[in-house]
């Protein structure tokens, strides 16, 4: 109900005022001015709020959470799989001696598994 009544208010306001962007700015009111406008003028506010936020965003959100954690995990998994794959593929050396050794080792493992 609260939301619906809110809409009615908003609806009236929008219909009355067709000038969209200005209305946007005005509706945001003091909050918008404080955040968007005053900040640019007031170095103190910037130092207190914007700079730490920026540092936090860059260090934690971008650097740690995004690059290291999210992207890093994907890249590490892919690199790990490729590394493993290269090791596995390297066993296809073409040397018959290696093939024979691996096959006989496998045979031994088969027998050991059955014996266990």
């Amino acid at each position, binding site marked *: 109900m609260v939301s619906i009544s809110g809409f009615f208010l908003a609806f009236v306001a929008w219909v009355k005022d067709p000038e969209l962007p200005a209305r946007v700015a005005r509706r945001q009111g003091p909050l918008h001015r404080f955040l968007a406008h005053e900040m640019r003028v007031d170095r103190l506010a910037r130092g207190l709020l914007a700079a730490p936020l920026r540092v936090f965003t860059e260090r934690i959100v971008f650097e740690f959470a995004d690059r290291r954690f999210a992207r890093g995990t994907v890249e590490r998994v892919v690199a790990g799989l490729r590394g493993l*794959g290269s090791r596995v593929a390297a066993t*296809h050396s*073409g040397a018959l001696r290696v*093939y024979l050794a691996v*096959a006989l080792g496998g045979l031994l493992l*088969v027998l050991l598994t*059955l014996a266990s």
Partner: protein
Amino acid sequence: MSDPAVAVLMPFVWPVVAAVIVLAFGRRRRRAVDGPSLGIALAGLGLGFVQFAWCWQSGASQEAFGGQLRVDRFAVLVGALVYLASAVSMIAAAESLRRRDRLDPEVFALFALAAVGLAAAAASHHLLPLLVAFELASACGVALVALFRETSRGAEAGVKYFFANGLAFAVSAFGAALVFGAIGSLSFADVASARAAGVGGPTLLAGIGFVIAGLAMRFAAAPFHLWFNDVADGAPAAVAGFLASALPAAGIAALARFSVAVYEGESESLRNLFWWLAIATMSVGNLAALVQTSLRRMLASGTVAQVGWLLLAIAAASGGEGADGASGDGEALRGLVYAIGALVIGNLGVFAVVGRLEVEGEPSRFEALSGLGVRHPWSALALTVHAAVLAGIPGTAGFVGRFLVLGAALDATIRTGDESFTLLAILGIVNGLVGLCGYLRLPIRTYLESSDSVRIGGRGRGVSTTWVVAVAILTFAGLWFGLGPEFAGLGVDPALDLARRAVESLR
């Protein structure tokens, strides 16, 4: 055909007759197909196929040579798939080899004889015909693989295949000797009753181990798979396609038949063995496929991974009976049959298209695929569909096979309370993801990378109508057996029904 034994053997006789005719009367032509030879060989396989259908219709499993060869519905289905693989490979070989002027009519005869060997292996219910059948197939196979023996890769492929088969024969023969020493018989039925009675002791178990290892060497399960990459790389594409589809089909079918016999009685250690074989084969194949730079080698590693999926089904079939006495191995083996079908369709299609590219002088590098979507849109589409079948994308036959196999593994957990089957399914899923990354390289190369830098081959060199029809049918089958409702006795449900009835005949 009044004698039942003769009727049982007829599916194997027709291709042999055709091969003999081709060998006797076939003529070599310069850069052209000897039409009659190809026709006769295909007709031989076709008659064998019809005979198989007749055996299927007659229902009950029929035996020859005192039960050594058992043509039940399982053998019929796998044999029919092997004949299909052989026929398609013949067509593909005719297409590619004539351009390189290597098309002796003997090639057709060798394909037909190899198919007979593999189909007979799938029907063997006794270790002796199993060994003989595989030797027939591998003798023909070596000749086919080494067709380009003047090139270093072709010669290497021939040597590797010869070596692998020799080792496999030696190991299996030793295993057979141990089995005979333990129970005085080589028949699967006697092995089963000995296992059920608990006689035979460690000698029998060791014999079984050697036989399984020997079989694993035949169809390239890890760690016995190393030869397969070199063979698939050096052999003509059509031969590689035949080996990558018919060989796992027949080998795994033989293993499934053997495993049903040896699962009688205490089977904990066997279950462990198949568990490890499945995981090792799957992981090794998928990981290697991820980094291979050669297209052929990538497909070969992918085939190894597919074999791992089939082994997973056999492992899931070992779940045994639950507390309520219900057995779930039928479900797992049904998935196995479906997955074998998907593997045959997928690998035949992929290798047929790859063979076509090589016809046009493009080497089997991944770069050969760049821009294929523009140059040969239909070939590109066929390649993509078959890659999707092999990767198990929903809507394709490959997915249905995986769905059943994974379901059977989870089912085994629910039935027996053994959590290791769930782990098996989860590892299978992880492997599926890795495998998808591998097969994804095909459509990415085909469609996403432009062909500006690579201009080898080009339009204009047509392929034969037979080839087009064969690949079109394969592509359609890959999709239709993945999502097709029943139509004219074909579709997912009828195919599942076929698989179920085939598995029922196994016991």
